[in-house]
């Protein structure tokens, strides 16, 4: 499902002393099949944007009490916000938001804090039953839970009867993710999926997301503070800053603009820092900012032992 947002604005506590504009006229398109990254500071509008995607925050025009604004004399109407997710028009009152939420799975920060049931099976089954059309049979539910647990790498027979609270942190998070993907959403949105895990746990979660992206959900959207994570994994990333999208580019292009990101107070991946450092020393390295590509491109520049002599030019960089 393609996601198209145009002229999206949102203000918390409007018309009050605490009014805070979280989104200001944001336009962003996310293509089906992307592994999309969203980066930005706390308070940059990332979460507000993401919460629009499954209707947790509704466009005013999709609410019952909404009345069309009338144009004032001599002033054209401001552009109306547009938000579509696949065939769902989120600006429309008649949209089936329940069906939308089934198609757009949302994994919040520290999802393991939201586990609640007595067994892993009940916890994962909750979303499935909630979103099923009619009442699913026990067999249908069990099959769905089994598949979702398998997808996150947990064996049904081992874990189904256990209490989710007895599992390790990484396992809890897997159960929580299973509870979201059990409805087979086409779009999976995750807020800081690797936060708070140890380095190994982080790597496992990122591998899991790639697996889900290949086998389960067409589009994966990840909100992250970890620039290395973005550089290694994403097809494209949007940078949110003070309620606007400062850029939406593939990491290869985005992190070439390291100075701009630094000016926004954001980090850049280590590889981008190294490339910038090399650039200052007259070495332009054309890499896509993944660690592997960086290492490969540097080694391509390494003078071969045979022709290492003073004044020898490094071989031409870049790959065919």
């Amino acid at each position, binding site marked *: 499902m393609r996601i198209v947002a145009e002229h999206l604005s949102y203000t918390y506590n409007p018309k009050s002393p605490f009014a805070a504009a979280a989104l200001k006229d944001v336009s962003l398109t996310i293509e089906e099949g992307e592994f999309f990254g969203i980066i930005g500071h706390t*308070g940059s509008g990332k979460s507000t944007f993401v919460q629009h995607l499954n209707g947790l925050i509704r466009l005013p025009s999709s609410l019952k009490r909404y009345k069309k604004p009338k144009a004032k004399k001599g002033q054209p109407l401001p552009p109306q916000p547009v938000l579509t997710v696949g065939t769902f028009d989120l600006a429309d009152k008649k949209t089936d938001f329940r069906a939308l939420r089934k198609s757009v799975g949302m994994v919040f920060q520290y999802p393991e804090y939201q586990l609640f049931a007595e067994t892993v099976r009940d916890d994962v089954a909750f979303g499935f039953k909630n979103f099923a059309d009619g009442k699913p049979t026990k067999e249908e539910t069990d099959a769905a839970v089994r598949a979702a647990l398998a997808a996150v790498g947990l064996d049904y027979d081992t874990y189904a009867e256990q209490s989710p609270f007895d599992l390790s942190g990484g396992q809890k998070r897997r159960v929580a993710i299973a509870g979201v993907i059990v409805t087979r959403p086409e779009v999976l949105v995750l807020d800081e999926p690797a936060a708070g*895990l*140890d380095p190994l746990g982080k790597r496992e979660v990122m591998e899991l997301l790639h697996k889900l992206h290949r086998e389960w959900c067409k589009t994966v959207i990840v909100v992250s*503070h970890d620039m290395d994570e973005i550089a290694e994994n994403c097809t494209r990333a949007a940078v949110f800053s003070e309620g606007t999208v400062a850029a939406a580019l593939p990491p290869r292009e985005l992190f070439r603009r390291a100075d701009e990101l630094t000016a926004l107070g954001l980090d850049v991946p280590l590889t981008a*820092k190294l490339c*910038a450092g*090399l650039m*200052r020393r007259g070495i332009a390295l054309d890499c896509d900012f993944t660690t592997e590509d960086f*290492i490969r491109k540097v080694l391509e520049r390494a003078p071969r032992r045979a022709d290492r002599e003073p004044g020898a030019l490094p071989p031409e960089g870049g790959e065919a």
Partner: protein
Amino acid sequence: MTAQSGAAFGRFGLRGGSNMKAIEFCGVSFRYDEESPFAIHKLDFSVEEGEFVAVLGHNGSGKSTLARLSNGLLEADEGEIRVFGTQIARKNLYDVRKNVGVVFQNPDNQTVATIVEDDVAFGAENLGLAREEIGERIRFALQAVGMQQYRTAAVARLSGGQKQRVAIAGVLALKPRAVILDEATAMLDPRGRREIVEVVSRLNREEKITVIMITHFMEEALLADRAVVMNRGEIVMQGAPADIFERQEELITYNLAMPRIGYICNRLRAGGLPVANTLDSETLAEEIARCVS
């Protein structure tokens, strides 16, 4: 501001004598229940007064248990734990906790009041101090963490990093001699993390407060005087952070990744580029430039 907060410390008589162990574990074992394996097993470990120690380890390696044992939140099954020379026992728990403050992971779970100054005052009020004294301590603690302008702000409206700084201030108001941060930066964004790391290094440097920092972020560990790696309740590696990070193979066996920069250094060397080991990106860029041209 620095001079002032130093003076404030002097007035509280916080600068302790040197050559004393801040925290000392002798053959300590602990497990959460009879059936489970030891979370801490026959551990000998000590931290000098004024030292900045980083504790690393994968989830479940015993890091947090270590923190909780250090200020008496948990009671050791075996062995002795001494805090500034005093052995922890039930009857002196309050004194121990005055000396060793702990800051936990979740900024939202550690505040008890709605207004910053009330929150910072909570611990100090519990000590039954005089009103003026509490006011003075709030002023000092907020200044130490750079939050003095938020004294009357609502805690709920602060950012994660600011809330953690308030939590640290609450601990400082007890005038502890050691602060333990149990993954206190894990839930923060990079800016919040930087804030906390800066505050903590400054407290260590200028106020000579002993700091034990439990973290998953290898870059944070680089700031410490000494890094300790835990695995299955035991200390398996310790030394200067830079030395620890050179021992990549070993780190991997303990389910820890080395910092990405160390990995890149190793891979470049393996590929035939003789770069020196470094943990600083600018130095590595310099090294690469030297090697390829």
